[in-house]
């Protein structure tokens, strides 16, 4: 129930540092690399998430998942979807209203899984940025993803 009610009526406030950090990270990111890396890592580390990809073919082991072109393609779709939040940081809830309905009513994705993918994305970004991914940058990035995850879960009922 907290998925629907917890953020009702609250505007997210971003500091200048947080805004700049999110814009900076995503402007330098190669979505075509990071998307596939994050999704395939999620499917390997949390194999129950494979339940949503029954028609993706061979997900038999880590090597197969990493090489799977449908997984790679879908990773890119997810990152480009995330881009919408990057471009609408003051309006993420509204921006994702339709995607939230899609994930709930059509895809039937357990919203707890959004957090798993978001953790994998954070780890992939950390491994790419190295020391530049400071504690403060991590905090901003994770806050952004938490807002995205919350918005995606909002239309579940």
């Amino acid at each position, binding site marked *: 129930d907290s998925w629907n009610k917890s953020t009702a009526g609250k505007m997210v406030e971003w500091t200048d540092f947080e805004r700049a950090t999110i814009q900076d990270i995503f402007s330098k990111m190669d979505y075509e690399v990071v998307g596939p890396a994050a999704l*395939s*890592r999620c499917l*390997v*580390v949390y*194999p129950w998430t494979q339940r949503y990809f029954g028609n993706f073919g061979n997900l038999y082991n*880590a090597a197969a*998942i*990493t090489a799977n072109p449908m997984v790679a393609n879908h990773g890119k779709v997810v990152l480009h979807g995330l881009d919408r939040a990057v471009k609408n940081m003051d309006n993420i809830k509204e921006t994702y209203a339709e995607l939230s309905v899609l994930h709930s009513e059509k895809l039937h994705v357990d919203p707890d899984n959004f957090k798993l993918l978001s*953790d994998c994305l*954070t*780890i*992939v970004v*950390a*491994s*790419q*940025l*190295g*020391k530049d*991914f*400071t*504690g*403060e940058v*991590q*905090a901003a990035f*994770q806050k952004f993803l938490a807002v995205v995850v919350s918005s995606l879960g909002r239309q579940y009922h």
Partner: protein
Amino acid sequence: MSLSAKDKAEVKKFWAKIEGKAGEIGAEALGRMLVAYPQTKTYFSHWGHDLNTQTPQVRKHGGIIMGGIAKAVKSIDDLTSGMSTLSELHAFKLRVDPANFKILAHNIILVMAMYFPADFTPEVHVSVDKFLQRVAWALSERYR
């Protein structure tokens, strides 16, 4: 989610690779946890308010934590016994809410990926994630 023989092998192999940097990894992980999850600072209020990866006590304590992880790697075949003394410490003296073990584990994993991007493959990641969950379980054994 018990540790398979493969998990144990992956963990031991990866640990051998990173052992030299364990102290630094611990300092980084603890420091960024205190920054990115400020509620965890409540356990370290005696060190002051502005805690981060550069704070001397944080760096030292990160090393101590990784010493505990090293012990866990050595006790991987019987984590409950291996972690028993540390479990008593956390249960009766430190009384750290076990939810925080998961938060610290996330940060340890993140720093491992940062320092060893080529070695921390998804396969290594899943084994390490499972291992740290089992360590957390063993640490909370004596809580109630």
